[in-house]
């Protein structure tokens, strides 16, 4: 007996997008039909690869979260695995009975009662009738629509409808389960219930493939992850796949500094430079010419380790002596604000910028501060209460935690927002 549940090799799916011909006049179309295409119309057929050369093996009992942006090919992959669509190339080998839920409420007919729809939808999901009979009360109780079960579902509220639909799905019975966005159904309380239901399916050592846009759901349920991008399999593996995906999402969503090289998609932007003063952020008298993040006593672009001291350098050009506050924020994965730091330490401790071109460095405190992972950094400047400079997510920071000793890792991760008491250093260049 082979121990894999799904093995995919060289899998590809090609779609043909034929150009819309409605622009042709009737006479032209008739001529084309009768004498062929002689009128010089080039009937273009574009090809589009929804999936390209996908290879992976999923072991029995694995719970795999499929992540990626819209159009990455997640749903197409599930369609191929569930045989709804046929592959254009490659092979899929499957060990065990497959059941797929590509849509919650599939097969529900508005004219039929809740009871009838439970049976209908159950059959479509491949649940034997006997089992639906046995579980019927449980299904109805889970959905919470007991009172309305003999009413046509067209009279249901949309919440009742999807709750009943999901309750059928939860009783799905197969070795390999494919789910496409089944968890964002109903209100928060119901979602929590369905989350537990899926978790219990996973606990029964079924092989589960789950597509969801909610990364918290995916990472809470699955033990391995598949990251698709533009039809290609970027990575498959453990939790770090989610981090990488998140990191890439940060890169995509933000203006990656004017100097960032777009060809290096997965590199970390640790330095941004603005070549002309016109481009540089700031106001008439104060400009930020570059921003860089590095580890102290290391060169730029070198890896930053867990126990390194992190330094943020801003190259500032200032044309008159004035009172300015500079600061930065650190976001985790570009999602929540983790911490912030500023040059404006106390009420009295104003920072008077010299009339010069200088490097303003923020040195992070000595103690371990950021845990392993990806962070994005925004910078800002405030002058007399006005925010005159703001560049969001311009730098990325990756902290590595290779070979940590117990003493280095015993403090854990900081919760919640922090103010980082940085040491501000000014080093005048010109």
């Amino acid at each position, binding site marked *: *007996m*082979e121990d894999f549940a799904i093995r995919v090799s060289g899998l590809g799916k090609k*779609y043909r997008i034929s150009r819309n011909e409605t622009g042709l006049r009737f006479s032209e179309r008739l001529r084309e039909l009768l004498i062929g295409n002689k009128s010089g119309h080039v009937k273009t057929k574009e090809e589009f690869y929804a999936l390209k050369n996908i290879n992976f093996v999923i072991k029995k009992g694995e719970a795999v979260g499929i992540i990626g942006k819209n159009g990455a090919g997640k749903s197409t992959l599930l*369609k*191929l*695995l*569930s*045989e*709804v*669509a*046929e*592959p*254009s*190339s*490659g*092979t*899929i*080998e*499957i*060990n*065990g*009975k*497959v059941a*797929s839920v*590509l*849509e919650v409420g*599939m*097969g529900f*007919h508005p*004219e*039929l009662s809740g009871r*009838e729809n439970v*049976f*209908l939808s159950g*059959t*479509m*999901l491949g649940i*034997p*009738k006997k089992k639906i009979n046995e579980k019927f009360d449980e299904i109805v109780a889970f959905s919470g629509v007991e009172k309305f079960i003999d009413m*046509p579902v067209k009279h249901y509220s949309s919440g009742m409808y999807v709750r009943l639909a999901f309750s059928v799905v939860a009783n799905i019975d197969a070795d390999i389960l494919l789910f496409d966005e089944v968890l964002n159904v109903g209100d928060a309380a119901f979602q929590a219930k369905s989350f537990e239901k899926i978790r219990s399916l996973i606990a029964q050592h079924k092989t589960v493939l789950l597509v969801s846009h909610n990364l918290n759901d995916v990472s809470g349920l699955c033990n391995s992850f598949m990251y698709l991008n533009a039809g290609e399999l970027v990575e498959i593996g453990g939790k770090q796949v989610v981090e990488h995906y998140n990191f890439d999402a940060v890169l995509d969503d933000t203006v990656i500094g004017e100097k960032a090289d777009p060809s290096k998609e997965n590199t970390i932007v640790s330095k941004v430079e603005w070549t002309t003063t016109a481009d540089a952020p700031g106001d008439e008298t104060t400009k930020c010419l570059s921003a860089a993040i590095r580890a102290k006593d290391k060169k730029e672009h070198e890896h930053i380790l867990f126990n390194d001291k992190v330094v943020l350098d801003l190259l500032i050009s200032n044309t008159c002596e004035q009172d300015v506050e500079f600061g930065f924020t650190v976001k985790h994965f570009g999602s929540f604000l983790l911490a912030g730091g500023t040059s404006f330490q106390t009420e009295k401790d104003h920072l008077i910028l010299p009339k010069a071109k200088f490097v303003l460095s923020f040195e992070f405190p000595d103690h371990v501060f950021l845990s392993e992972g990806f962070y994005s950094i925004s910078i800002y400047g405030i002058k007399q209460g006005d925010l005159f400079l703001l560049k969001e997510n311009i730098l990325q920071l990756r902290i590595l935690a290779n070979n940590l000793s117990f003493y280095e890792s015993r403090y854990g991760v900081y919760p919640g927002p922090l103010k980082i008491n940085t040491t501000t250093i000014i080093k005048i260049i010109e």
Partner: protein
Amino acid sequence: MAATKIITADSGKNGLNPGKVWQYRSLLYSFTVRDIKVQYAQTKLGILWSMIQAATAAFIIHLFFGLMLKINIPGVPYIIYAFPGMAAWYYFSYIVSSSGTSLMQSQHIIKKIYFPKLILPLYKTVAGLVEFLVWFVVFIFILIIYRHPLSINTLWLPLAIFLNIVTGLSIAIWLSALTIRFRDAFHIIPYLIGFGVFVTPVFFETAMIPASLHFLIFFNPMAGVIAFYRWCLLGMGFPVQYLWGLVPVFILFISGLYYFRRVEGIIADVI
């Protein structure tokens, strides 16, 4: 546990695979039940409507052809002659129009779950059978009214129904697959049904048209099916030439199944 299932491109070239359809028979059953239930959902009279429809049709035909045009069929009252033909034609046109468009009608399901698509034209055919049987109940009433005996050949009725279904499906399977590639095929259906009834001896007798044109009628499969019904129910003559009608049915049915299989793999992509 089942052996490893292998999915590759072009599964449509792997033969007809009728076992797959059998494997999914519970789905066929569910679809059929749903179709019947939906049809009568929220109506007070339910299936009685089908009976009313059949009775009304019988009455109008009796009035128009029997009393006004005075078509005379030797040996049987006109309505008793015409009714089996009407019922058979009704069922045939039901299969062609419902099964023929079944893939297009179910495109949403096709995109979301896997099943052998042949289930779709098949379940429509089975669902239509219920209404067809209602017509037979009406026919029995008409026989009682006229005190006309039912022939002993009625025992062959299942074969007649089977031939009726195969004839309908031979066209419907082609149409349903064609509508996937060419939507235009959809527009053929009303012509087939609307004009077909005039070249099929539903309301008239083959003897009424010139003998030189009889060969055309013999190649019309529905003419044979209807003649067979009349042989079954009324014990009327069945000229063996009608068996020619089986030739186009056989060719269309088998080629239709192959064409359907070829299209099946791309349905979810193009629909």
